[in-house]
């Protein structure tokens, strides 16, 4: 669990480092054609804004929240307590919360910066580090609540409920909207999708496997995750040949990862990528880093977008 979060964390750190890079050119959600290849971009802007869905917080609810659990900002927003968030980690980058100061550096929590914000609730998950800083915060009398991680669509309910309980809001309304995601049956001729975690022009790329998070999204969107169906670990440094052998129809990548290999052209230059069915016909779906694995209120909309994107690229 830890190393997945670290990977996700480094992806998001990369995002922050190169924040100025691409916002404008990835703001197209239609299917632009790159060298005659269908590429679909799904950005934060394509998803509905996070609106407060739940009811009012109770009278005993915390007033000053620091959110350190990965990507929980989206859920706090939907629960209607965005204005109570006074500090956050790099990953809770949703409107309404983004203005709160970041109290982590390189994924390490600074106890001093957290306590300086005088919080009455600190939300963490099992990947929040270092433990020493969290113990210092707890010792000073601040309530520290650990919420469960979410790597599948069914994990989402437990996570939303835990966050809601911590901030004393009734989650029923929010859970109802998330629950609208109906179970899908994957047809046997569904397109196969490989989730590639890219990190630099000549770094080895990793393939998402069982429990990468992307496998749950791909299944819900009506595709077959090639890594998961091979029973591979969440993130596997794959040989070029193995990717050719898996031969996915579609590649799923994150925006910053794609930037790190110099775009679609650079992606198709990687050994093993061009020789797959997806590479040969250039079928790529690009999703913004901060929305792909957040498993929050916007995930149902993301799944719909992914489903549409799969149809678009496979024509």
């Amino acid at each position, binding site marked *: 669990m830890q190393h997945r979060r670290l990977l996700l964390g480094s992806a998001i750190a*990369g995002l922050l*480092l*190169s924040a*100025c*890079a691409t916002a404008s050119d990835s703001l197209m959600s239609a299917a632009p054609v790159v060298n005659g290849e269908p590429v679909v971009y799904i950005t934060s802007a394509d998803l509905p804004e996070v609106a407060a869905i739940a009811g009012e917080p109770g009278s005993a609810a915390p007033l000053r929240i620091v959110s350190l659990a990965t990507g929980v900002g989206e859920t706090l927003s939907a629960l209607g307590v965005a204005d109570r968030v006074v500090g956050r980690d790099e990953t809770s980058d949703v409107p309404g919360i983004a203005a709160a100061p970041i109290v982590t550096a390189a994924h390490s929590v600074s106890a001093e910066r957290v306590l300086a914000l005088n919080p009455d609730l600190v939300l963490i998950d099992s990947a929040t580090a270092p433990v020493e800083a969290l113990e210092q915060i707890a010792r000073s009398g601040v309530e520290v609540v650990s919420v469960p991680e979410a790597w599948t669509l069914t994990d989402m309910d437990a996570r939303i409920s835990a966050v809601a309980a911590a901030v004393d809001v009734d989650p029923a309304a929010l859970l109802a909207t998330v629950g609208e995601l109906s179970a899908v049956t994957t047809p046997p001729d569904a397109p196969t999708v490989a989730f590639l975690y890219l*990190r*630099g*022009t*000549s*770094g*080895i790329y990793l393939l998402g496997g069982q429990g990468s998070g992307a496998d749950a999204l791909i299944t819900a969107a009506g595709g077959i995750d090639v890594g998961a169906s*091979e029973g*591979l670990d969440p993130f*596997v*440094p*794959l*040989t*070029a*040949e*193995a990717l*050719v*052998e*898996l031969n996915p129809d579609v590649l799923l990548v994150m925006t*910053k990862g794609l*930037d*790190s*290999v*110099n775009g679609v052209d*650079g992606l198709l*230059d*990687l*050994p*093993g990528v*061009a*020789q797959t069915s997806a590479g040969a016909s250039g079928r790529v779906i690009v999703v913004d880093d901060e929305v792909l694995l957040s498993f929050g209120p916007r995930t149902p909309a993301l799944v719909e977008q992914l489903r549409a994107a799969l149809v678009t690229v496979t024509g």
Partner: protein
Amino acid sequence: MARSIFVLIGLAIALALAGIGAVYVGVADTTSVIVWDIRAPRIILATIVGAGLGVSGALLQGALRNPLADPGIIGVSAGAALGTVVIVSTGVAYGSVVAAIGGIIGGLAAMAAVTVVSRSPRGVEVVTLILAGVAITAFAAAVLSIVLTTSDLAGVRSTTFFTTGSFALATWPGVAATLPFVLTGFIIAAIISGRLDVLSLGDRAAFASGLNVNSVRWWALVAAVLTVAAGVAVVGIIVFIGLLVPHAIRLVLGPRHAPLLIGSALGGALLILIGDTAARTLVAPVELPIGVVTAVIGAPVFLLLLRRTRAQQGGWA
């Protein structure tokens, strides 16, 4: 003499067989696309880089008269990695000829620094050279980390890539960026191999027999950088091969440089080719970084050589 030729022919045949074998093993079916686009550049790059590492080690050990010299140990590889990253952080593509030139400039700078520091009136001291190499490697790694963390280019490679070396993303352009420099180094090595034999008698004896000692040493060190630095720029740092291979060849063929250099090229290529084939097939579909494999085998051998060298020189304390 005849024995040398038999051993070298044997090594060449083993290398050819390993190369042919590597074409046929792998995860995917042996289709022409797999072989031509994925396996062939990887096999050829492994051969070039391995041969370069072997020759580089043999040149360094001869020119510095130091049995523990290896481009990874004395800091040349780290300098090459730094040179590559500095060039790449200006927007040049990895695996290009320009990036390889950056690696060579970095390698030459590290080589200059390490030899200037460890030179003494009695020649280049064994221990000082190794310690200077440690310091240069640490310095280069530190600057490399600074460049990597401050670069706003998303494509800049991770630090771990450079310290664990890998052929996973070998491509034909990578082969083209490495081959000319390694070949140039080989040609220089071939030209000076006889003079390196004279040099091994000691600076004074070599000078007395009419050898331009400084010129030969200088060319040998330049060739040692050329044979290794372009490879570092494309596949990262692979340590200890330059140490192991010449020692093994010397045991069989003796200290003459002509057979030693040819044997080190063949032996280095063979070892890296087998190592890389193992790296991509042993735990398939997962990829092992080859630099890790060579370090696990090479570090204990280095320690053994360290003990032996110290005993031969009567202790260093």
